[in-house]
């Protein structure tokens, strides 16, 4: 023990352990690879694939898959592949941001309610209240209510994006809040929190250092469910005519638009349907794997 600076054991981040465990879950690994591929695809695909998603080539409309158009074209001759990528960007962006918002809100409320006894009653009643509000109708009303104001401020796409994300986010944080609160309550009783208190750690650091890292796994799991939920809600809103404008591709929109052509051009339904299902599926499997990987009982030694 003479060399005090040299630490022989590698400083191994626990995320590596999580990753090791995650890797052993086959479904999760495949899911993760898929998800990364999809994200890379929609992010960088449009750079590589030269055709613009809004470019109309009216002469080649309603074509089946070919080399020029791997997924065919739509009724105006726009390239479906390009539209799928553009749509994926929006759908995933909606999914990820709405999820992040719901998660942020849910975690904030959950942690506050769980940690500060005084806030608990108030925050949990608020959560109950939100749970008691029938969501879909309210979502519809909210969208009707604010769409135009936001459109005016951020342009039609930006406005509806903000609206969609905040509407979905604001109506789906409650479950997370409840779960997080429950976990925080349990963690608060764990001895290491008491230990930190006996040291004199103030609440702020107590939350960031001890509570939050330990409620991570339910949060992560809600996160994966949240993405799937947001993508699907967006498509349902498209169906009810309240989603993004029709010329603005999202997977939900593309799916909805092509349902009419189910018999003539079944592949048109297939692409967005497949994209949504695969994303949701991979995200769900990832969630399963993450839950296992983040559970120290399973990960243990």
């Amino acid at each position, binding site marked *: 023990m003479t060399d005090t600076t040299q630490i022989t054991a590698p400083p191994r981040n626990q995320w590596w352990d999580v990753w090791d465990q995650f890797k052993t879950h086959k479904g999760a690994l495949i899911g993760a690879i898929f998800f990364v591929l999809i994200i890379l695809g929609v992010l960088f695909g449009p750079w590589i694939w030269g055709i613009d998603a809004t470019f109309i080539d009216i002469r080649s409309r309603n074509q089946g898959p070919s080399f020029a158009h791997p997924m065919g074209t739509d009724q105006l001759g726009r390239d479906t592949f390009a539209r799928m990528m553009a749509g994926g960007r929006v759908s995933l962006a909606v999914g990820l941001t709405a999820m992040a918002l719901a998660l942020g809100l849910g975690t904030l409320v959950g942690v506050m309610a769980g940690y500060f006894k005084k806030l608990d009653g108030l925050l949990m009643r608020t959560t109950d*209240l939100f749970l008691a509000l029938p969501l*879909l*109708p309210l979502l519809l*009303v909210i969208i009707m209510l604010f769409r135009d104001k936001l459109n005016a401020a951020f342009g039609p796409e930006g406005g509806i994006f903000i609206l969609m994300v905040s509407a979905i986010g604001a109506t789906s944080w409650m479950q997370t809040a409840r779960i997080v609160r429950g976990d925080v309550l349990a963690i608060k009783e764990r001895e290491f929190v008491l230990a930190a208190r006996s040291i004199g750690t103030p609440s702020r650091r107590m939350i960031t250092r001890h509570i939050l890292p330990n409620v991570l796994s339910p949060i992560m799991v809600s996160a994966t469910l949240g993405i799937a939920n947001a993508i*699907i809600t967006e498509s349902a809103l498209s169906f009810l005519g309240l989603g993004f404008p029709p010329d603005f591709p999202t997977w939900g929109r593309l*799916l909805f638009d092509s349902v009419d052509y189910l018999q003539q051009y079944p592949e048109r339904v297939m692409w967005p349907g497949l994209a949504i299902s695969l994303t949701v*599926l991979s995200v769900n499997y990832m969630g399963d794997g993450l839950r296992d990987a983040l559970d120290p009982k399973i990960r243990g030694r």
Partner: protein
Amino acid sequence: MFTFTIRRLILTVPTLLFISFVIFMIVKLSPSDPTGNLPLTIPSEVREQIREALGVNKPLIVQYGLWLKQFFWLEPRIYMEHAFGWDLGTAGETRLISYQTRSPVMDLIMQRMPQTLMVVGTAYLVGTLIALPIGIISAYKQYSVFDQIGTLVSMIGFSVPPFFSGVLVIVLFSVMIPSDSYFWLPSIYDTTHEVVDWESFKYQFRQMIMPVMVLALQITAQISRFTRASMLDNLNQDYVRTARAKGLRERTVVLVHVLRNSMIPVVTVIALGIPSIFGGAIITEQVFKVNGLGQLLIIAIQGGDVPTVQTLTFIFAILIVLFNLIADVLYGILDPRIRYD
């Protein structure tokens, strides 16, 4: 238990009042206009006149007060009069009137209730009945082929929006299959159909198959996942080992000891899902033309029918609050360890 229930019941009153206010205001403030759906050829003076006739232009707080009174005081009395034949002096009072149909909102809701309950309720039942065994077997045989397939199917069920799966089954069973075939299924739900004999029952059954299955797929997906998780939690408990040590059959161990415990959270989740039956499955109803409460709501929203939207939304809220309460009470009843008092 009893005081707990009473306490919760009392607490629901302010909650509901607050919710009613929120709902009233949100819906009211939305730019929905009762004349929005009239043809363009109707000039604006006429629109204004219609609005005036519908009482849209009164102060908000007056409207809220009136609405509250109608909802909580007038309508219950009217229903009591209907049910018991009393006279409670409701004759001259104006009820909650829908803008679109100019008829009492409550009557509309009552009219829609049967088909929604029939279709969505059956779907919920079927979905639950399918989900439970799937969840139980998946958990018992964790990571088996059955479990993997169950997971896959339920995730697909979770990720396929009903406007897609609905249309898909319609194309498969109503379009591709000739209508004289035995397997042909009607694509449009007949809400006037009455079951009087075996034949009409068969027809009712056939017309329910598709909407019920499309809905049940989603319900199954969710409940089976939940059941599986809950079963897994319990399968590792010590008391299961005790039961085995007693020499009980595997079936008894799982179906009596584990199931009973696992069902406690599942049952409450199922109870919490029941309000959604009344809320209808808006999209599925739309696809199969099961004109239930969901469709009523969506038409009302689109048509700017403010009283209908408010009332319907609020009824959903009441149901949610109520079933939350029921779920909590159920939890206490099912789990002898829980004592709320």
